[in-house]
């Protein structure tokens, strides 16, 4: 067990930054001061994270054992123990490094984006607080501290979505995000209870604290026999129940069906927030948790199945909505939901490392796309509707070219980062040779269906991203064009503005009329430099995970091998055949159980290599086809009308409001409060009261004449009683 006290610096540096910015920054109101504090503290985190991950003692990313840092024992009651302790193993090393690094870039970007905002210091205090929470989440060494970060990022997300407090949609979105996350958190909490009762611990790692041995809950469950693949085990209170409960939390945090609707609304926050929280880091926390608990999931084939189905369904569902949105950030938001779906698909089929790989590349290219869109919005004076853009490549060349790399990355064009990670997931889905659920879909293996849907989603992704690029950067300039629909909307809002006239207009307002001599402008250096860095990462970042088959045998998948120890190698039990098949996509599973095959794998089965290469070619063709379709459809007519139901996002929000929120509110108001509380209970009591009053009426009439007020009367009485007490008391004490 390695100790490194520097670990706590990673989380506490941003916390200190948040406090300083809040207390001192609020007084100074100096943008330079706030920027230096915010970016500086995150820079410290970044340096320390990389130092511990790669340098100190050989680096946590290469070490066998996690680096631990015990701070204090947080809660210890009756056999339950939760430490405030941090740990960095290979998985959290990956997360800590990309979170701090991408976070740092976004902080720098935000210093330009938020320039001139009245709440500059407040914004950076929240952003730093977010970094603290997120890093606590990934570096926690037990479930409960992870939950601290988990709720903490939810809070920061709430605060930052609602940052423009005057905007109604912002405050609505903030609350919605928090509540939906809370629904998920319920699952995490109950899941943690279950894990605790199953293992007597909530720690991630085996450790010794103050002479006391704390065993790892994850290892304990990994050693148990796997649950069978049936629906019944979901409610049996065993491993599968725990896994499903945790996954409920993941659907909330990572915006999966059915709890995904908050994420698109969350775009009401400032764009750097969307990039940092709602694309690169926080929303991938669900993936982190599932991978962290892979030992639990591997023992719960039913839960794995659910994860795969939900992930895949979300991927395609969100992609269809993304096709029809006109707000540039909304498109990217649905794209994020869709990409998160891919990650869960990977988890569900047992390709945990591929999921993390996609988390990382996605963090690069999606942060890039969001920041790029932020740069566009900044240049367009806070116009977000793509119908009023066009031909921006002339005006914002840096933004354009960096966005192009992001676009190619997400579409899955080779060399760019997204290609390797997405292709890895699709290949793994395909290569899952047999799964327990094959029979359930009338002879068609489920993994083939998942793979097919995954491919379709890849095409859709290319189409909507191409649409976004063309609407924004190509075609005619539409800044001053009259858009019937848009104008109608704008005029409604103009009235609002008028009503609030006299308020300071420091905050972002939608759909204000652009002046006639308006020209979009390129953004300042502190916004374009982060874009360029991310563009490089989006281009080359995928190379760390280049698989053997595609590198022509030059390198074996470095990323995969590095993260291998994090994934529990399930020793097969004879009675759990289903699991074995279901997990067959994980070659290392077999490597342990059947040593003879292990050799084959290291030498790479030529047949498998051929398949992998063929599938990669298919992916590329489909990605290019998607781009082609996109250009064909939207190249000439960027404003092509999309199906109404897609524009309306399949009316999911209306469904939730109409069938859950409103009935519950009405029930509470009309039945519980007015009906039961005021009607039944109070009615009863008041009846009795009236009776008593009627009886006492005569007595009262006499009293009122004599005593000026009840208060004086009873005060005297109380004093008499007290005096009596005291008199006797003193006599007794003597």
């Amino acid at each position, binding site marked *: 067990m390695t100790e490194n006290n520097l670990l706590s610096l990673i989380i506490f540096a941003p916390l200190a930054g948040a406090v300083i910015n809040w207390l001192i920054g609020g007084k100074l109101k100096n943008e330079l001061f706030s920027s230096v504090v915010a970016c500086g503290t995150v820079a410290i985190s970044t340096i320390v994270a990389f130092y511990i991950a790669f340098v100190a003692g050989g680096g946590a990313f290469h070490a066998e054992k996690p680096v631990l840092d015990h701070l204090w*024992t*947080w*809660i*210890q*009651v*009756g*056999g*339950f123990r939760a430490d405030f302790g941090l740990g960095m193993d290979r998985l959290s090393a990956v997360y800590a490094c990309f979170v701090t690094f991408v976070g740092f870039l976004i902080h720098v970007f935000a210093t330009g984006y938020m320039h001139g905002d009245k709440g500059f210091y407040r914004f950076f205090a929240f952003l730093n607080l977010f970094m603290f929470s997120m890093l606590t989440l990934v570096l926690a060494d037990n479930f*409960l501290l992870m939950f*601290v970060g988990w*709720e903490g990022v939810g*809070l920061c997300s*709430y605060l930052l979505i*609602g940052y423009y*407090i*005057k905007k*109604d949609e912002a*405050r609505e979105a*903030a*609350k919605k995000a928090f*509540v939906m996350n*809370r629904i998920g*958190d*319920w699952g995490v*909490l*109950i899941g943690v*209870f279950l894990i*605790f*009762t*199953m*293992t*007597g*611990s909530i720690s991630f790692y085996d450790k010794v604290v103050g002479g006391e041995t704390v*065993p790892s809950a994850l*290892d304990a469950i990994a*050693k*148990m*026999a796997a649950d069978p693949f049936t629906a019944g085990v979901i409610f*049996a209170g065993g491993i599968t129940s725990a896994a499903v409960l945790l996954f409920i939390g993941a659907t909330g945090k990572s915006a999966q069906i059915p709890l995904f609707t908050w994420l698109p609304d969350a775009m009401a926050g400032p764009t750097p927030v969307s990039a940092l929280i709602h694309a690169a880091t926080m929303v991938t926390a669900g993936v982190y948790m599932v991978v962290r608990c892979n030992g639990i999931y591997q023992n719960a084939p039913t839960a794995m199945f659910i994860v795969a189905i939900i992930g895949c369904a979300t991927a395609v569902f969100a992609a269809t909505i993304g096709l029809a949105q006109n707000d540039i950030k909304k498109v990217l938001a649905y794209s994020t939901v869709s990409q998160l779906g891919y990650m869960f698909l990977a988890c569900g089929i047992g390709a945990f490392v591929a999921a993390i790989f996609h988390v990382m590349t996605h963090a690069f290219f999606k942060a890039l796309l969001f920041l790029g869109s932020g740069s566009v919005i900044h240049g367009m004076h806070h116009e977000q509707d793509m119908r009023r853009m066009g031909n921006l490549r002339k005006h914002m060349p840096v933004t354009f070219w960096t966005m192009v790399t992001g676009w190619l990355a997400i579409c899955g064009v080779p060399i760019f980062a997204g290609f390797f990670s997405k292709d890895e997931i699709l290949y793994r889905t395909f290569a899952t040779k047999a799964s327990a659920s094959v029979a359930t879909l009338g002879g068609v293996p489920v993994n083939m269906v998942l793979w097919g849907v995954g491919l379709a989603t890849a095409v859709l992704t290319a189409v909507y991203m191409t649409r976004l690029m063309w609407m924004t950067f190509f075609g005619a300039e539409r800044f001053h064009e009259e858009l019937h629909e848009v104008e109608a909307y704008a005029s409604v809002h103009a009235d609002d503005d008028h009503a*609030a006239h006299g308020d300071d207009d420091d905050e972002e307002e939608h759909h204000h009329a652009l002046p006639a001599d308006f020209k979009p402008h390129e953004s300042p250096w502190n916004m374009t430099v982060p874009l360029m860095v991310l563009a490089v990462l989006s281009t080359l970042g995928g190379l760390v995970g280049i698989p053997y088959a595609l590198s022509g045998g030059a390198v074996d998948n470095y990323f995969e091998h590095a993260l291998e120890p994090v994934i529990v190698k399930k020793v097969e039990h004879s009675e759990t055949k289903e699991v074995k098949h279901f997990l067959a996509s994980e070659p290392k599973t077999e490597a342990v159980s059947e040593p003879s095959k292990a050799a084959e794998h290291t030498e790479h089965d030529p047949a498998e290599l051929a398949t992998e290469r063929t599938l990669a070619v298919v992916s590329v063709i489909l990605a290019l086809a998607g781009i082609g379709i996109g250009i064909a459809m939207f190249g000439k007519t960027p404003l092509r009308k999309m199906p109404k139901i897609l524009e309306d996002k399949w009316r999911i929000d209306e469904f939730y409001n109409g069938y859950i929120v409103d009935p519950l*509110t009405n*029930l*509470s*108001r009309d039945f*519980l*409060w007015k009906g*039961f*509380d005021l009607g039944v209970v*109070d009615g009863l*009591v008041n009846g009795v*009261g009236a009776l*008593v009053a009627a009886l006492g009426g005569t007595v009262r009439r006499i009293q009122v004449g004599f005593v000026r007020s*009840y*208060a004086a009367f009873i*005060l005297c009485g*109380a004093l008499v009683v*007290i005096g009596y007490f005291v008199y*006797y*008391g003193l006599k007794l*004490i003597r």
Partner: protein
Amino acid sequence: MDFITENLLTILILLPAFGAIALVGHQMFWKQEGQLKWITFGLTLVNFLISLLLFTGETTSPGGFMFEKNIPWIKAINTNYHIGVDGLSFWLVILTTFIMPISVVSTWHAVEKRQTAFYAFLLLLESAMIGVFVSLDLLVFYLFFEASLVPMFFLIGVWGGENRIYSAVKFFIFTAFGSLLMLVAIIALYYMYAGVNGGVGSFDFVAILNAMKSGNLLIAGQGASLLFWAFAIAFSIKVPLFPVHTWLPDAHTDAPTAGSVILAAVLLKMGTYGLMRFNFALFPDQSREFAYIFIVLAIVGIIYGALVAMVQPDVKRLVAYSSVAHMGFVILGMFSFTETGMQGALYQMLNHGVSTGALFLLVGFIYERRHTRQITDFGGIANVMPLYATIFVITTMSSIGLPLLNGFVGEFLIMVGMWKSTVLGITGSTNWNYIATMLAGTGVIFAAVYMLWMVQRVFFGKLTNPKNKTLKDLSWREIGLILPLMILMVYMGVHPAPFLKRSRESVVAIQERVVHQTGGTYERAEKKPAELEHR
């Protein structure tokens, strides 16, 4: 100094009472109403400082009483002035003395009429509340319990809001009804004890408890159930447990700020404290037998309170209903009969005192400015009162149980305790304890809904109501009031160990008393990893 530590609890009780008399005297001779609040504040502050001497106490036996005093009082009925403090009451006494100066200062500009009586009542209330927590004689306990009603009745009825008379009477009828039942039970216990003690009855809680423990005094069957319910109803109304909670929203809404703060922070705890101290200890078998009723009502209260809170148009009423939900959690933890759950319940009592007390203070601040609490009268307040908004949001987060703030620790321990408990039993493959915990857990979701919805409507958005444009942010006095509570919220959330440590032995003693006949525990042993390999 020796005199003080020797008679510490007595001083804590009597100092405010003498203070009340002094106030009246002061008013008679000097007629300087302006000085009254200073005197009252000084007295309560001194009382708080004195109460800190409790930390010097040491118990002679694990879970035993400190600063115990047992002096014969009315020999004819063998009533003793028997007081003492243990882990169960320790923090509640300090919570009381701590919250008093704060609530006094909260009235600085709010009370204009009859200041003498107002402050005298506040001081009398403090005496009564401390008395409740330290009494070890049932009759003395009863007297303090009743005595706490009177000042609160007038605080609501005289200095309250629009419906003050109705609310005050309702408050009085509900609680007095319960405590009358309790009085009957206390007298019954007196005679039962006399039956086994050679005709000499006693109200002494410790004596009766020891007689029960040693098997001399056996109360069983219907009689025991009746006695149990007599106590339990009195305390349940005080908590308040669903469905006898309806006095609370009215009392809170109409009480002056100081009254609401004290009501939420301390008075409600008398109910949960009483259940734990008297019902659990005196009637362990009945406590187990009827636990399911309390658990069901607690869960209904958690969900019901949250749902009704959601649709309240009045901020204060909303917070009041949230109290119903929070106190439901406390009941749930207590009746899990596990160390984790009961410790969590005790901790949650303190948390609720701090965060809900703070919420009522904050609502009071805005009421003093605008003389309205209707949510629709506000909107966009954060634009003119940023500091107030910040503090309100932090308090909200504490109330809805955000980790690293106090509320989370309590709720979490309660739910872990309930989860591990076997009190509800397991039928077939259905573990009812799990179901109870999962249902209670939904309260955590609803809490976020109603609190954030309110915060959103009051603080965010555009400032639409012109009357709100000139609102001033918090004054130094108000910051000073709320700051100690904020510090506690963070400290209790980050480092609960010192609190839990002090109460542990007493809580365990009570827990063991309750489960003494069930093979020792309701706590399911956690399986050790080694045993699990061949599940």
